[in-house]
């Protein structure tokens, strides 16, 4: 085995261990450790990705001295390595971009705790991405939930605490259902490792045994993960949680945490149940309908919103609807479109959050639209970045959002029964997106007589501006250079099976 194969294990372990180390370090050192760890994990994932593209095969890695059905395993393929790399990039940029506003209303002595949470969140995301064992996935889902809750409520204003309680209640309902589904699955197959479960499930389907429990178990796991990733009817906690937490938290939560659960769901669909078996159930129709409803209702709520951060948060609900709609189509093309949308949404949403903080900063800290009038002139870089993000969200060519909408439309054409609904809702949702994002863009570029707020130039916010440029570049790379990435996703999904 090549030394590179150790990298997934190293990246999980380093980030776990750095969480422990940060607990004894002062703030500055903890910050340095955090940055180094994220960068190191990113580099390792990049090397691993290149290696895997070279060999073209996925590999499993024993966690211990025992082979497959007895020990614990992690598994790495192209899609996993790519996801890990992408998560690291987004996390690094979000942390750097929000750094100057990180500790708004956070007590000074608790700053180093923030970095512990970030490290543990990273490790749990990596474990969710790489794991090949269902129960390990459950344990790391819990770490993910608790550290996300910590990220929400570290800024202790009343709203965030309330949002954290709502978030915890919803998440715990979700974990309960997920665990119950997992237990039923364990009872039917007698295994916990994904590949072994898949073999047993195929055997059960072939023999026609235990059909009802199998369907119920899959449904429970799906509902659990949908609740945790804030699919439409379960999104009540989301606007407050994203809208009032510190900006890095909001960017990380919206672009990474919910995506981690969605990635786990993809893994379950492919590696535990089997894509064809999953598509032959009625679950995908339910996912499809809820996805469509989420797309419309999320956008409608965003239009009504009066507060820029909450508006962006509601737009996340709509975007998660897109992803589930892709699952619901039940074809390979729909799945590829969903995975691409995960990437594009993560890149765009964190860009929007980071840019929004730049805009509110020059408006006296207020996030009401009325105060944001003309903010695009006062903070040009944030204005440009926000415009770019909005264009990407609406789906203008050159930006990543366009490609994902194109992929969704292409996928929809191949599906008989769902084509019309998908295309109509896609159209409506694009118009709604355009309404609320363009409204904001026009608002921040409206002329204003009010000059009481200070202007901010490049010198005052170098890091912030550079991060924004990187985000825009990432968006454009995803938008212009989409074909290799789509190929990579297809290759990765093929490795899953």
């Amino acid at each position: 085995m090549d030394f590179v194969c150790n990298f997934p294990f190293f990246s999980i372990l380093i980030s776990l261990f750095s969480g422990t180390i940060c607990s004894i370090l002062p703030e500055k050192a903890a910050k340095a450790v955090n940055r180094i760890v994220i960068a190191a994990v990113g580099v390792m994932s990049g090397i691993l990705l290149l290696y895997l593209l070279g060999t073209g095969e996925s590999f499993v890695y024993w966690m211990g001295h025992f082979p497959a059905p007895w020990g614990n395993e992690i598994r790495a393929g192209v899609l996993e390595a790519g996801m890990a790399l992408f998560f690291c990039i987004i996390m690094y940029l979000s942390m750097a971009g929000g750094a100057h506003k990180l500790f708004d209303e956070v007590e000074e002595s608790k700053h180093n705790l923030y970095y512990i949470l970030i490290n543990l969140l990273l490790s749990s995301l990596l474990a969710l991405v790489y794991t090949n064992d269902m129960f390990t996935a459950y344990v790391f889902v819990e770490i993910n939930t608790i550290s996300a809750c910590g990220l929400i409520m570290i800024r202790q204003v009343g709203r965030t605490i309330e949002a954290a309680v709502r978030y915890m209640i919803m998440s715990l309902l979700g974990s309960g259902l997920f665990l119950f589904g997992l237990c039923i699955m364990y009872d039917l197959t007698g295994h916990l490792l994904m590949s072994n479960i898949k073999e047993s499930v195929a055997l059960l389907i072939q023999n026609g045994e235990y059909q009802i429990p199998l369907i119920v178990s899959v449904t429970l796991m799906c509902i659990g993960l949908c609740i945790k990733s804030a699919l439409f009817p379960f999104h009540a906690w989301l606007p407050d949680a994203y809208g009032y937490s510190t900006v890095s938290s909001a960017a990380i939560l919206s672009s990474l945490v919910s995506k981690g659960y969605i990635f786990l769901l993809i893994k379950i669909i492919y590696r535990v149940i089997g894509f064809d078996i999953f598509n032959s159930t009625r679950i995908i129709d339910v996912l499809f309908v809820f996805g469509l409803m989420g797309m419309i209702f999320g956008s409608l709520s965003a239009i009504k919103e009066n507060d820029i951060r909450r508006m962006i948060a509601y737009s996340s609900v709509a975007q998660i609807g897109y992803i589930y709609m892709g699952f619901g189509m039940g074809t390979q093309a729909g799945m590829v479109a969903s995975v691409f949308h995960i990437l594009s949404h993560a890149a765009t949403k964190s860009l929007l959050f980071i840019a929004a903080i730049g805009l509110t900063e020059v408006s006296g800290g207020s996030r009401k639209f009325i105060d944001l009038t003309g903010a695009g002139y006062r903070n040009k870089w944030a204005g440009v970045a926000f415009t770019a993000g909005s264009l990407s969200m609406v789906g203008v060519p050159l930006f990543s959002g366009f490609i994902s909408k194109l992929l969704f439309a292409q996928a929809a054409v191949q599906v008989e029964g769902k084509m019309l609904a998908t295309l109509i809702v896609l159209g409506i949702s694009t118009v709604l997106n355009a309404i609320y994002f363009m409204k904001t863009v026009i608002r921040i570029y409206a002329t204003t007589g009010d000059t009481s707020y200070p202007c901010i130039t490049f010198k005052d916010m170098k890091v912030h501006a550079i991060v924004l440029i990187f985000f825009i570049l990432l968006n454009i790379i995803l938008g212009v250079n989409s074909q290799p990435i789509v190929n990579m996703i297809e290759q990765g999904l093929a490795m899953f099976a």
Partner: protein
Amino acid sequence: MGPNLWINYGEAVAAILFCIGFTNLLLQTNLIKKIIGLNIMDSAIYLFLAEKGYIAGRTAPIVTDGVTNVEAYINPIPSGLVLTGIVVSVSVSALMLSLTIRLYIRYHSLDLDEIAAQLKKEGR
């Protein structure tokens, strides 16, 4: 209905407990009771798992007198999973209780809807 409902009475009890806990978590207005409901829900899942590992007439999986025969012991896997699960649920309930304390100190209420109304009135 399948054939095994009466044999699986333990699991049936676990399912009923799970639903009671679930209902508590959804419907109780009081946060403390919500947390108790959450704990009941978790315990129900663990009961379900432990029932899965039980085999009639065998003993606990601790090797006695050097006998390492499969026929002698029950299945050890569910016990291990439940042990892990209990730790998770303790941490979660401690976290929820601390959130409750913090909310109460600030808003003097344990009802989430009431707190939300207060928040919206004062914060807009």
